[in-house]
């Protein structure tokens, strides 16, 4: 199954070898086979990517290697050999020796994985104390050295920092420092960059790669992002519902994917040059680009002027400061710092930036869920900023601006069925009090977004991520808004689902003539749907222009960094990686 001829370390004994692994979970609905017949090898000095969508069993695999599987999970067959030791039948005491010292793991969410009430230095010392013979007086020095190794600036200061004082990227560095403190031979990184910004993602992944090379580590990268895996891994294992569907060297996998699932996954991952139609492999109605040109008029539907939003910085507005009359001294934090933008009727504009750049605040103000501190929100010539957000829900203008939320799970009321979710705006905004007419419209909407009508009676937890996204979109378009704000509508979805949802959004815009304001951190995705892109940084607009122009020729250094950081599925990078590995 494994294409061993492609590995650079052919003939060497693998440090980790998994063969025919089966893992079952006992649940209320019966036994679930989470992993079936999994097998792959990892050698020293290489990075192997385990790629798959949610529920494919990739995290279960990682937990299994480390022997920290949930008690409901059970290994029912196969072997996990780590340097000749059978990890599945090894006693807990032996595993405890291996964990941290010889095999380490980096978790998905660094903030959750770090103990919030202990300093970073203490947590590193814990690991050192357990697994090394470093003397107590040298411990602090060793911990600082570990922080220094992951390129944390001022490690002496950071030694005393608590996790909440550090940024997400910084926390992940600390996690890596923890994982590598005892010089392990095997590092398992389980989605190490989920929830981090793209530029942070790049620095973290570069760090893992560099450290891996320096220390001749065997690394297993578990990820859902094929682009990321292609950039850093020599070999890839593609998993689907618990089974390995394909396993090959990165180059081979991309140039000649054999399994249909791999092909679908590669197609669905947006590249620099891909178009929407490429993602699903289906032919879309021709002339969509020209149609877009035709429907875009010169009249701005929405124009935002000098928008400012300040938040209290909180720090010195406590009762003590207020008591001393110093509350007013605190300079409020400017989340949005005087931005102006236009969205033409029928146009689709992308608003791109990293977390904290103010893009979500801007979209909340435009949606009128939040009041701006200053500035105008002109919608069809009328200044909506004059209407307080608190009373906007009951205004007739509410119908015109709707939003698709980031997290389809969180944005659906767990106690409402899909039908009731979609019908709610119809009842409140469109005033459709006739149940039969409402039902007819709900069915029509479900049909429009491709949601099977028999799923309408289900609760959100009974729907898949893609189906929930469809419910969210159906709800947003139910009252035929003229402006639809898309707040990272695909960031919580798997790539194959993302491809379908993006296509759906493009189709709907064509059909209904809405304007889109697409808020996202992913330039690659924005480019697919938007003709014009606005790049934001620290509350300001740094660059604005046609999507193709910005991507091919960014003027601002920040935009360039952003574009570079997005891991593309590009053959050149994989090629370079393969070449670099050859002499080794």
């Amino acid at each position: 199954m494994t294409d061993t001829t492609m590995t650079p370390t052919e003939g060497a004994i693998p440090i980790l070898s998994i063969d025919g692994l089966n893992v079952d979970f006992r649940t209320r609905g019966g036994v679930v086979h989470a992993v079936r017949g999994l097998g792959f090898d990892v050698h020293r000095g290489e990075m192997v990517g385990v790629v798959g969508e949610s529920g494919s069993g990739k995290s279960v695999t990682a937990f299994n290697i480390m022997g920290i599987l949930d008690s409901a999970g059970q290994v029912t067959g196969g072997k996990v050999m780590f340097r000749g030791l059978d990890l599945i039948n090894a006693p807990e005491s032996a595993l405890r020796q291996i964990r941290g010292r010889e095999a380490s793991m980096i978790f998905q969410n660094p903030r959750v994985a770090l103990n919030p009430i202990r300093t970073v230095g203490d947590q590193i010392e814990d690991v050192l104390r357990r697994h090394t013979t470093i003397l107590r007086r040298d411990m602090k020095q060793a911990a600082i050295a570990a922080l220094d190794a992951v390129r944390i600036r001022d490690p002496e200061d950071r030694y005393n920092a608590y996790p909440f004082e550090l940024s997400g990227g910084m926390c992940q560095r600390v996690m890596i420092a923890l994982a590598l403190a005892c010089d392990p031979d095997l590092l398992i990184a389980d989605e190490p960059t989920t929830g981090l910004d793209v530029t942070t993602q790049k620095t973290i992944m570069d760090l893992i790669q560099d450290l891996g090379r320096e220390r001749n580590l065997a690394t297993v990268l578990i990820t859902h992002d094929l682009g990321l895996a292609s950039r850093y891994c020599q070999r890839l294992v593609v998993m689907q519902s618990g089974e390995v569907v394909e396993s090959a060297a990165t180059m081979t996998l991309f140039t000649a994917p054999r399994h249909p699932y791999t092909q679908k996954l590669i197609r669905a991952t947006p590249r620099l040059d891909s178009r929407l139609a490429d993602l699903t492999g289906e032919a879309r109605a021709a002339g969509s680009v020209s149609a877009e040109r035709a429907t875009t008029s010169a009249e701005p539907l929405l124009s935002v002027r000098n928008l400012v939003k300040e938040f209290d910085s909180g720090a010195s507005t406590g009762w003590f400061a207020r008591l001393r009359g110093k509350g007013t001294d605190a300079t409020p934090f400017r989340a949005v710092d005087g931005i102006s933008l236009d969205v033409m009727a029928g146009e689709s504009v992308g608003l791109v930036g990293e977390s904290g750049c103010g893009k979500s605040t801007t979209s909340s103000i435009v949606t009128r869920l939040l009041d701006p501190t200053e500035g105008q929100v002109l919608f069809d010539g009328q200044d909506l900023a004059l209407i307080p957000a608190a009373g906007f829900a009951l205004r007739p203008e509410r119908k015109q601006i709707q939003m698709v939320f980031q997290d389809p799970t969180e944005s659906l009321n767990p106690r409402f069925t899909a039908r009731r979710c979609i019908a709610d705006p119809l009842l409140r905004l469109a005033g459709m009090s006739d149940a039969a007419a409402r039902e007819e419209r709900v069915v029509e909407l479900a049909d429009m977004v491709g949601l099977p009508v028999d799923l309408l009676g289900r609760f959100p937890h009974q729907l898949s991520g893609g189906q929930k996204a469809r419910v969210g979109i159906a709800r947003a378009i139910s009252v035929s808004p003229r402006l639809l704000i898309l707040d990272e509508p695909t960031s919580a979805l798997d790539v194959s689902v993302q491809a379908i949802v993006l296509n759906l959004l493009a189709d709907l815009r064509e059909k209904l003539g809405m304007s889109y304001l697409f808020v996202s951190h992913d330039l690659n995705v924005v480019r697919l749907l938007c003709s014009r892109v606005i790049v934001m940084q620290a509350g300001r607009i740094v660059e604005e222009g046609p999507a193709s122009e910005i991507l091919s020729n960014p003027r601002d250094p920040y935009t360039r960094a952003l574009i570079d950081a997005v891991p593309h599925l590009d053959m050149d990078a994989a090629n370079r990686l393969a070449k670099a590995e050859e002499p080794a």
Partner: protein
Amino acid sequence: MKAFLKHLRYVLTENPVTLVAGSMFLMLILLGLFGPWIVPYDPLASSPAALQPPSAQHWFGTDQLGRDVFSRVIVATRLDLTIAIVAVALSFVAGSVFGSIAGFYGGWADRIVGRVTDTIMAFPLFVLAMGIVAALGNTVENIVYATAIINFPFYARVARAEVNVRRGAGFVQAARLAGNSDLRLLATQIYPNVLPPMMVQVSLNMGWAILNAAGLSFIGLGVRPPTPEWGIMVAEGATYIVSGEWWLALFPGLALMLAVFCFNLLGDGLRDLIDPRQRT
């Protein structure tokens, strides 16, 4: 309705504890409803056969006035349950309303509700209940009010905390976009999601309310003899334990214990019943 019954059956069969608690609860309700008609003796009628130990005629024996203890224990179910249910319902409604408003609007509403609950919690609750009954007058209604007042903070706090975390949730924002006013949002979108933890609180509180009512009558407040009530019966029977007539206090005490036990066990089942996420 059909789906609900199916779910009810699922919840009951999945967890044997819930099944046991559910059947006990059903039995208590039936005894409360039909108790006076099924008992073998008049609970108030005295007879010459005083202080008889349990026998075939008198299952739980007779008391100092020759009244049948079994009949009195059964008949008392209605009064004790009524006091507990009405008191819990009152504090549940008041706590939900004020707690939700405090959690949703924050600011002054939150501060006022917060300080009121803090003030109530600052007293030893049973002593506070005694004080309220003593001040308002020694009647059954006032026992209900006193029990409701001392239970109010628990509901207000749970409702406040649960509403507060959901205030900014995505589905709430979405509902706002759908044109729901704040009040409607709170009532139809947020509050139903707060129900599962509130139901657990209800079931725990119910047992506590029964104990509280019995406790008040034990010390002579509220219900007065000769009304059959578990608390009074334990109080009256207590004096006879030393002389060996243990059945006077034991059986009403046992009834009290079973009722409290039943409500405490019911919590998880109630939550599962009310949470749609448990339906698969």
